[in-house]
């Protein structure tokens, strides 16, 4: 006799799986990866590969031999962490830096909390911040490595745009003067991949392509990313209007210092961001505000990593108190 399958409804599934969503994130990152390979050549390939392989290997080893559970590397989340971490490092970083960052990201930030779905902080960012604090010299060395494709004399300034501004301001120059001194800091250069920065943020356009892909595939919703952008634009806009000599403008702030990479790929990490739409907007505004505060008044020239990590800590609180809009709010009387 033929056996019948029995289950409660629903009987069909969207076929989205954790693995397919993570694969989509990797696909969305591929334009940025391609651009960085174009500019940095073998070095970029080596970093991304080392990051991904180390993360996957660390996850497999820890789960298999320390936690004695079935490894979950097939869901590709470790690979995503590795790629993101690599894209967040300076282009000149040595291979062992990527490995150390990956071990911290997976071993400390992810698996000690219970693995995917339980970690409080974004693993890739924890890895990056760990490296930034432990190896500040290596992590702020923005010199551009020799490449097959571009002539090194063409290569632009060694410092990131934000670092250049920070140094300039410290030496008493106005923003306008600094920009005039550094021709490489034009917007078109930033958008089309000329300015210095970490491996992944070399081209804003490539990152935007990835964002559009994620939206079209419904992998993420736009709430977090857009609210970060709007917050940064509005707040920096106000300060810029007040005193353009000291404060950098909105467009400059949006396109530099990892805002695009962070707001599209890091802040939207499922595990560490709020789940309801209203909560996501609050979270995005928080990241935007903290980023601007760190940039204007903090000692670090950038601030997105710290801002996201700080808001990660608020995510459980936001999830607890911010509920989605219920259908039919009021309760029927009687």
């Amino acid at each position: 006799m033929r056996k019948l399958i029995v289950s409660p409804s629903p009987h069909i599934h969207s076929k989205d799986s954790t693995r397919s969503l993570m694969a989509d994130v990797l696909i969305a990152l591929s334009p940025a990866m391609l651009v960085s390979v174009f500019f940095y050549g073998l070095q970029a390939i080596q970093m991304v590969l080392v990051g991904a392989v180390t993360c996957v290997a660390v996850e497999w080893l820890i789960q298999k031999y320390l936690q004695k559970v079935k490894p979950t590397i097939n869901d590709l989340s470790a690979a995503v962490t590795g790629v993101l971490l690599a894209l967040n490092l300076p282009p000149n970083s040595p291979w062992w830096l990527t490995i150390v960052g990956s071990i911290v990201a997976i071993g400390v930030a992810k698996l000690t909390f219970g693995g995917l779905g339980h970690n409080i902080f974004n693993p890739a960012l924890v890895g990056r911040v760990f490296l930034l604090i432990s190896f500040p010299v290596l992590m702020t060395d923005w010199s551009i490595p020799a490449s097959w494709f571009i002539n090194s004399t063409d290569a632009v300034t060694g410092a990131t745009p934000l670092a250049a501004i920070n140094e300039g301001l410290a030496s008493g120059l106005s923003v306008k003067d600094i920009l005039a001194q550094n021709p490489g800091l034009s917007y078109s250069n930033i958008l089309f991949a000329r300015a210095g920065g970490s491996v992944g943020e070399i081209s804003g356009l490539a990152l935007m392509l990835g964002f559009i892909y994620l939206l079209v595939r419904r992998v993420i919703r736009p709430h977090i990313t857009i609210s970060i952008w709007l917050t940064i634009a509005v707040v920096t806009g106000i300060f810029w209007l007040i005193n353009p000599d000291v404060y950098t403008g909105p467009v400059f702030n949006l396109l530099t210092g990892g805002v695009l990479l962070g707001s599209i790929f890091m802040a939207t990490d499922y595990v560490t961001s709020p789940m309801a739409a209203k909560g996501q907007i609050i979270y995005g505004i928080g990241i935007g505000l903290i980023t601007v505060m760190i940039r204007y008044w903090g000692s670090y020239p950038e601030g997105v990593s710290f801002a996201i990590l700080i808001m990660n800590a608020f995510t459980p609180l936001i999830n607890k108190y911010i509920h989605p809009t219920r259908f039919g709010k009021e309760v029927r009387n009687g």
Partner: protein
Amino acid sequence: MSNIILITIVTMSVLGIILAMVLYLVAKKFKVEEDPRIDIIEATMPGANCGGCGFAGCRDFATACVKAGSLEGKFCPVGGNAVMKIVGEKLGLQVEEKAPSIAVVRCNGNCDVRPRTSIYDGSSSCRVSASLYNGDTDCAFGCLGLGDCEAACPFDSIKINRTTGLPEVNPDTCTACGSCVSACPKQVIELRPKGPKDRRLFVACRNKDKGGVARKACTNACIGCKKCEKVCNFEAISVTDNLAYIDPAKCRLCRKCAAECPTGAIHEVNFPPRPPKPAAAPASPAAPAAPAAPATETLKKEE
């Protein structure tokens, strides 16, 4: 330099004194007067907070014992008579002795004897499966094997055996708190007295279908043939709705019924092995199952 250290020490000390005073005053002002005996009683409780006594936890039970002024109807199944005796002594109250109980699984439809007739593909929860249909076998009364009892047990004493698909109770750790009994949607688990020398006799089946239907669904099922009812000298066995039930209060553990049962539905636990009876073997083909099943349990106990 020494100045800084001095200032630090002074500030910290003053701060400490002020905060200590605040703490002291608050503790004094907001102190809740409670019967000190509640704490004493709670300390004697097992502290599992399982709710087996019918109260919301050990402290709730202790409060109820102190306030009620009598221990009638109050019993901690986990601590058993030993703990209740201490509670009675401390409160100066009479304690009623209760025979210690244990959870028994009244289903023996393992994978070999009870074929699966459909494929269950829903949440791994007996309650979900039971809300959908009768279960993935033709027996509408038996264990679903999805482990709601295992999840409910606060003592890790009931576990689904993956080879038989049935739960097994660890007699050493089971406290008869009743969590599994209320978790089981099929009422397969029953609390029964542990019995003298831990010997127990019970019908490991809940099937109320007519004999033929029950037998077709599961060869270990009670078919309601009433042989056990007839052979029992103490009127301990009654057959209602095609299902036999042994009343533990009347049963004298003579084991006559178990030998008589044609399907081996009556389980004997912790009895010494029967003397071999060459000629008396009943004609029923399933008879060997009867001694075989309890034997495993006896072995486990001896480990």
